C-alpha cells in the first residue's frame, strides 16, 4: 500500500510538471493579450507530432526534436498571433472563436499527415530509477520534471529580470497604460505567443513517448488546462503552477484509487466550485467589480 501511495505521488509530480508547462503558457497568453487560446491543446499535440515526425520517422536525436518542437510550435503561435489574434485585438470573443477554427485546422492536419490512429513512439530510453522497492521513476518522466522546473525557472527570471519581462508584466496589469509608457503591444504579444505556444510544444514533445499521440489528444489537455487556470486564477502565473500541482495530485490519486472518469468529474466540479465561490481563482487577488 505504501508503495502504491508513493508511486502515485511520483506519478502526480510528473503530471504536475507537464500540466504546469501547458497551463503557464495559456495563462501567459491570456495575461498579456487578454484572449483565451482554445487551440492550446492542439499546440501540445503539434509538439508531440514533431517528435513523431522527426524522431520516430526520420531518426533525429530525441533532444534535438524537443528543441525543434519548441521552435515549431512557437512559430505556430506566432502564426496565430499575426493571422487572427492581432487583427481581433479588440474582440476577445472573436479571438477565441478564431482559435477554435485554428484548432480544427491543426487537428485535421495531423489526421491527414499521420492518420487517426495512435502513433507509438519507441522511448529514447527505457532506463528507470527504483526509488525504493516497488516505486519507479522512468528517466523519460524525469526529463519532463527537470524540463518543467528549468523552463519555468527561466521564465520566472525572464519576467523578473529582463526589459521584455517587465514590459510583459506591465501589459498583464493594464494594457492601455503599458501602451502609453511606450511598450509595443504587438512586439510583446508576439513574444508572449511564442513563449506560451512553445511551452505547450515542449510539453507535447517531452511526453510524446509516454502517451502515444493521437490527433485528438488536445481535447483532454485543454479541459485540464482550463481547470488549472480557473482554479489558479486567470492571469496568475504562480497560481497556475500551484493549481497544476493541486489538480495533478487530486486527479492522479482519484484515478489510481477510484476511477479515471470520476477523477475527471472531480476536477470539473472543483473548477465549477471555484467559479461559483471565487471566480478570481484560489490565488487571485483582484476584487470582483
Amino acid at each position, binding site marked *: 500500500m505504501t508503495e502504491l501511495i508513493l508511486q502515485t505521488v511520483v506519478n502526480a509530480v510528473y503530471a504536475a510538471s507537464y500540466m504546469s508547462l501547458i497551463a503557464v503558457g495559456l495563462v501567459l497568453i491570456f495575461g498579456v493579450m487578454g484572449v483565451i487560446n482554445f487551440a492550446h491543446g492542439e499546440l501540445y499535440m503539434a509538439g508531440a507530432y514533431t517528435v513523431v515526425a522527426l524522431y520516430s520517422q526520420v531518426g533525429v536525436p530525441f533532444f534535438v526534436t524537443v528543441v525543434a518542437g519548441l521552435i515549431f510550435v512557437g512559430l505556430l503561435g506566432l502564426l496565430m498571433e499575426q493571422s*487572427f489574434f492581432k487583427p481581433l485585438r479588440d474582440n476577445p470573443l472573436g479571438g477565441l472563436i478564431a482559435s477554435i477554427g485554428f484548432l480544427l485546422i491543426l487537428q485535421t492536419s495531423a489526421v*491527414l499527415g499521420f492518420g487517426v490512429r495512435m502513433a507509438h513512439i519507441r522511448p529514447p530510453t527505457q532506463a528507470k530509477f527504483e526509488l525504493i522497492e516497488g516505486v519507479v521513476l522512468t528517466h523519460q518522466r524525469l526529463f519532463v520534471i527537470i524540463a518543467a522546473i528549468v523552463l519555468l525557472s527561466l521564465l520566472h527570471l525572464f519576467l523578473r529580470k529582463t526589459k521584455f519581462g517587465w514590459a510583459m508584466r506591465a501589459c498583464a496589469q493594464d494594457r492601455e497604460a503599458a501602451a502609453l509608457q511606450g511598450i509595443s503591444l504587438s512586439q510583446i504579444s508576439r513574444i508572449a505567443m511564442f513563449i506560451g505556444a512553445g511551452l505547450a510544444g515542449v510539453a507535447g514533445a517531452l511526453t510524446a513517448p509516454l502517451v502515444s499521440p493521437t490527433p485528438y489528444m488536445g481535447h483532454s489537455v485543454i*479541459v485540464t488546462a482550463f481547470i488549472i487556470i480557473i482554479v489558479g486564477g486567470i492571469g496568475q502565473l504562480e497560481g497556475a503552477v500551484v493549481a497544476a500541482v493541486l489538480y495533478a495530485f487530486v486527479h492522479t490519486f482519484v484515478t489510481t484509487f477510484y476511477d479515471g472518469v470520476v477523477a475527471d468529474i472531480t476536477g470539473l466540479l472543483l*473548477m*465549477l466550485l471555484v467559479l*461559483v465561490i471565487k471566480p478570481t481563482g484560489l490565488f487571485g487577488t483582484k476584487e470582483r467589480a
Partner: protein
Amino acid sequence: MPRAKANIWSWLLGFCLLVGLLVLPQVLSYSQREIAVLLIINVLLVSSYRLMTLTGEWSLGHVVIMGVGAYASALFSKRLGIPVPISMLLGAASAGGVAAILSFPLFRMKGFYFLIGSFAAGEVIRLIWKYFTYPFGGPKGLKLIPGFPDIGSISFFEPEIYYYLCLFVVAVSLFVLYRIERSRIGLTFHAIHWQDKLAESVGVDTFRYRMLAFVLASFFAGLSGALYAHYIGTINPTRFDVEEMVFVLIWAIVGGTVTFYGPIIGVVVLTVMNEVILRSLGFDTARPMIYGGILIVSVLFLPDGLESLIPKVKGWFSGRVKKTGEVLEPEKSP
C-alpha cells in the same frame, strides 16, 4: 405604399419558401432526405442557441443540453414505455429543467467565466452518461431507441415522412421562438444584454430573465435532441461533445446572430456546402479543416455574418433609385 409593396414581396417569398420546403423531399434522393431531416433538426438547435445569446451570454454547453433532451426522451420511451410523442416533450422539459438547475451556479458568472462554466457543466453531464452504464449505457450509449409510432399506414421510419414531422415541429417551435423575441420578453433580454444595471434599476430581475432565456433555449435544444434520438435510434456521449458544439458556434457565427434568420442561413448554407460541394469533391477527412478556415475567415472578414449581406442583396433588387441615393449622400458632406 412602399411598405405595402414590401409586405407583398415578403408574403410571396414566405409562400415560395413553404412550397419549396414541402416539395423538397420529392426532389431529393434517399440519402439527401436523411440529410434534410438532420438539417431541419439543426435549424432548431441553432435557433434555440440564438435565443440564449440574446441576453449576451455565450454557452459552450448547448449541445450537451440537446443531448439531455435526447437521453431523457430515449429513456422515457425505452425504459418506462411512455409513448414517443409524449416522451419527446418530456425530454425537452427535462433539458429545460436541467438548465433551470444549472442557472444557479452558472449565472453567478458572466462573459468568459460563463463560457468556461457552461463548458465544465456540460462535460460533467457527459461524463455522467459515460460513467453510469445504468441507465445511460456508458460510453456506448443507448441503442434501439423506439421510433416515432406509425399513424395508420404512415410510417415515420421513412426519412420522407419524418422530414414532414420535423418540419411541422420545428416550424411551430420557430414560431414560438420568434414570438418570444418580438414580445416584451425579447426586448427585456436585449436590455439585459446591453445594460443589465439599467434594466435592474427599472425592476427587471436579471437573474430570472437570464434563467428564462436559458430554460427556453434548452427546452427547444432538448426537443431537437429528442427528434434526433428517435430518428437515428442510437445516441452516445461522443455525439454531444465539444466538437459538435463547435459546429453550432460556426453556424451561428458564419450566419450572424443579430437577426432571427442569421443562424438559420448559417446552418443551411454550410450544410449544403458541406454535403453537396465538399462531399462531391471527396474531401471527407479534410472537411473539419475547411470548416476551421471558414470560421477564421468569417470572424476576420465577415464579422456580422452572412445575414449582413441580406440588406445589400435587397438593395440590388429595390432598383437604382436607392442606389443613386446612397451614392449622392456622401457628396453632401464635405
